[in-house]
C-alpha cells in the first residue's frame, strides 16, 4: 500500500457522483484531495462497479441503461484527476467541533487510523427509506436497491416468482432493467397515492426543460405497465411465510389479494444518509415534503461546521446529475474557503441552467412519488419497526403514550435503535410515530443522537490505533503509512 497523506488538504468521504466531481475539480485546481470510499472501486451506489461491468459483463451494461453507462466517463476522469483514492476504507468518526483538531477516523484492511484534513467533504449519498410493514424482516424480502446492487456487483438476476412493491422512480427503473434482461416479475404492487395537484402543476415546468428525461421515464413506465401487472393504491401489504417469504398479501381497489412470491423487493424512495453528518454534530432539520432529515446547508454545501461541507444526495435527494453539478460548484466554494486567508473569498458560484432544469425535474418526481403513508406510520401495531431489537410500532406508540418524551428516551426504555444498524432502519419511523402520538411536528420530536463509531470497528482495531504525535513503537505502523495487509490486526 502506498503512503497515505495523513494531512490532506481536503478529505472527501464517498466516491459517488458528488464525491468524484468535487474531488476531480479540486484536484484539477491543484488541491491535495484524498477520497475515502467503502467500495472497492469508484462509482458510489448509482455507478457501482461500472468499470468492472464494462470490462467483464457488457451484456449487463445494456440492461443497466444509459444513465449508468454515463458514469464511466466520470469514473475515468476521476481516475486521471490526480485525486488520491482509498478504496475499501470506511469512515467511523469525525471528531467533535470541540476537539482541538479536525480529524477523521478511518478503517482500512483491519487497521484504524486518524487523518487530519483541513477540510472535509461529505458525499455519503442516499439510502432507501425504511419501509416497515408486517413480514418485512423475513428472508427473501429485500429492497429494490439491494437487488439492483446485486445486478451491478455480481450480475445477479432475480429468478422464480418475483414481486415488486412500493413506489418511486428506482422501482420502475429496476423493473425496466429486468424486462430488458428478459426477466418478468409477477406483479408490481404500487403504493403511490393519487397524483396530487402539486405534482400536476410541477409537471409542465419539468416537461418544458427536461422533455428527454421525462419521456424516457414515461417510456419505462409504459414498457413496464405493458408487460407486468400493476396494482395501484396498494395498502395493507404483508409478507407471509414461516422461515422465508412464501406469499404477499395486500389490498387494492377495496379487494384483498394474495400472491405467491419467493422474492419480494420493496422500495419507497431514498433519503439522505445522514449518519456520519449527524455523528459529526452537524445541524439537521426535518424536511416536511421529503419526509426526512436533511442537513442545514448554506451556499452550495456549507454546514453548521465551517470545515465540513456536504454535497450530493447526502445533502438533499436530487439525483446523480445534480450531484455532479453540485460537486463541481462545491469544489469552488471549498477552494474559496481554503484560499480565503490569502485572497478574497470567492462568491458562491452561480447556478448553471442545467442545474435549474434538473431541479425542476426532481421537484416533479418528488411530488409524483411522495412517500407512502402506509410505510411512514405503520398502522398495524405488530409491525416490527426496529429490526435489530425487534421493537414493534405498538411498543413505540405505547411508551410515547405513557409520557416518553422523545426518540432518545424511547431508545433508552425499549432498546429501539440500539442494535447494530444504529437506528438507520428505524430512526425515521420512531420519530414519526412519536410525533403522531404527541401531536407535534417531527422536527420538534427530534432524532436519535448519533455517536461514533458509525461504521463497524472492533475493540482490538480501535485499541491498536496510533494517535498523532504519539510514540507508536512497534504497536502499529507509523502515521503516514497505512498498515499493509494483516499487519496490525493480527499482531497479537
Amino acid at each position: 500500500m502506498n503512503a497515505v497523506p495523513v494531512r490532506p488538504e481536503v478529505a472527501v468521504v464517498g466516491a459517488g457522483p458528488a464525491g468524484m466531481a468535487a474531488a476531480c475539480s479540486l484536484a484539477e485546481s491543484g488541491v491535495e484531495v484524498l477520497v475515502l470510499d467503502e467500495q472497492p472501486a469508484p462509482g458510489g451506489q448509482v455507478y457501482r462497479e461500472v468499470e468492472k461491468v464494462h470490462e467483464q459483463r457488457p451484456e449487463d451494461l445494456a440492461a443497466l441503461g444509459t444513465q449508468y453507462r454515463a458514469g464511466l466517463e466520470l469514473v475515468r476522469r476521476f481516475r486521471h484527476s490526480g485525486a488520491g483514492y482509498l478504496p475499501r476504507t470506511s469512515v467511523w468518526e469525525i471528531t467533535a467541533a470541540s476537539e482541538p483538531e479536525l480529524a477523521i477516523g478511518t478503517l482500512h484492511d483491519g487497521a484504524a487510523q486518524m487523518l487530519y484534513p483541513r477540510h472535509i467533504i461529505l458525499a455519503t449519498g442516499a439510502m432507501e427509506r425504511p419501509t416497515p410493514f408486517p413480514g418485512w424482516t423475513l428472508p427473501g424480502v429485500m429492497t429494490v436497491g439491494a437487488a439492483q446492487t446485486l445486478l451491478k456487483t455480481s450480475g445477479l438476476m432475480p429468478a422464480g416468482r418475483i414481486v415488486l412493491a412500493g413506489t418511486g422512480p428506482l422501482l420502475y427503473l429496476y423493473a425496466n432493467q429486468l424486462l430488458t434482461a428478459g426477466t418478468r416479475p409477477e406483479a408490481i404492487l404500487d403504493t403511490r397515492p393519487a397524483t396530487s395537484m402539486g405534482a400536476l402543476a410541477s409537471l409542465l415546468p419539468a416537461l418544458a426543460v427536461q422533455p428527454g428525461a421525462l419521456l424516457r421515464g414515461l417510456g419505462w413506465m409504459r414498457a413496464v405497465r405493458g408487460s407486468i401487472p400493476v396494482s395501484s393504491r396498494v395498502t395493507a401489504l404483508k409478507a407471509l411465510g414461516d422461515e422465508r417469504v412464501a406469499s404477499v398479501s395486500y389490498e387494492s381497489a377495496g379487494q384483498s389479494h394474495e400472491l405467491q412470491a419467493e422474492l419480494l423487493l420493496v422500495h419507497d424512495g431514498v433519503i439522505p444518509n445522514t449518519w456520519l453528518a449527524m455523528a459529526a454534530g452537524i445541524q439537521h432539520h426535518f424536511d416536511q415534503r421529503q419526509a426526512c432529515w436533511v442537513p442545514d446547508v448554506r451556499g452550495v454545501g456549507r454546514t453548521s461546521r465551517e470545515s465540513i461541507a456536504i454535497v450530493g444526495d447526502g445533502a438533499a435527494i436530487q439525483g446523480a446529475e445534480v450531484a455532479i453539478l453540485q460537486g463541481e460548484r462545491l469544489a469552488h466554494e471549498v477552494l474559496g474557503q481554503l484560499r480565503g486567508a490569502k485572497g478574497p473569498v470567492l462568491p458562491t458560484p452561480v447556478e448553471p441552467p442545467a442545474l435549474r432544469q434538473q431541479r425542476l425535474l426532481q421537484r416533479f418526481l418528488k411530488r409524483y412519488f411522495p412517500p407512502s403513508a402506509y410505510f411512514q406510520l405503520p398502522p398495524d401495531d405488530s409491525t416490527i419497526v426496529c429490526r435489530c431489537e425487534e421493537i414493534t410500532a405498538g411498543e413505540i406508540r405505547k411508551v410515547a403514550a405513557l409520557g416518553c418524551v422523545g426518540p432518545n428516551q424511547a431508545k433508552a426504555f425499549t432498546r429501539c435503535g440500539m442494535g447494530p444498524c444504529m437506528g438507520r432502519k428505524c430512526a425515521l419511523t420512531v420519530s414519526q410515530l412519536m410525533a403522531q402520538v404527541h401531536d407535534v411536528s417531527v422536527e420538534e420530536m427530534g432524532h436519535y443522537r448519533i455517536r461514533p463509531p458509525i461504521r463497524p470497528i472492533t475493540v482490538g482495531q480501535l485499541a491498536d490505533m496510533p494517535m498523532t504525535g504519539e510514540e507508536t513503537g512497534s504497536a502499529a505502523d507509523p502515521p503516514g503509512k497505512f498498515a499493509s495487509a494483516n499487519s496490525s490486526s493480527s499482531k497479537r
Partner: protein
Amino acid sequence: MYRRSAAIAEPVILWFEDRKIMAAPGDSLAAALLAAGVSVFRRAPVSGAKRGPFCMIGNCFECLVEIDGQGVVQACSTEVRQGMRVYMPRGQSPGEGD
C-alpha cells in the same frame, strides 16, 4: 431466488456452515451466498427468527455472518476469499452460548 447472468470462469470455493459454495472472484460474500440459494444468514438475537440480507449497502446489518478468524462481519461488505469458512453467528441468539 437469484441466478447469475454469466457463468463463473475461475470459481472461489468457500463454505457456509457445511455447504460448499462456488463464488466468482470479487463477489461480496452476501452475493455469493444468495447466488448459491442461501437466504437465511443468521437468527435475530431477540426472537431467534431467521434473517437474511436486506439492503446490500451496509446499512441494515441483517447479513451478519461469522467468519473463522475474523469474527462477525457484514456479508454484503466482505469480499469472498478462497477457502473462507462462514457460519451463522454463534452465541448471538437467546439460549445460545454458555
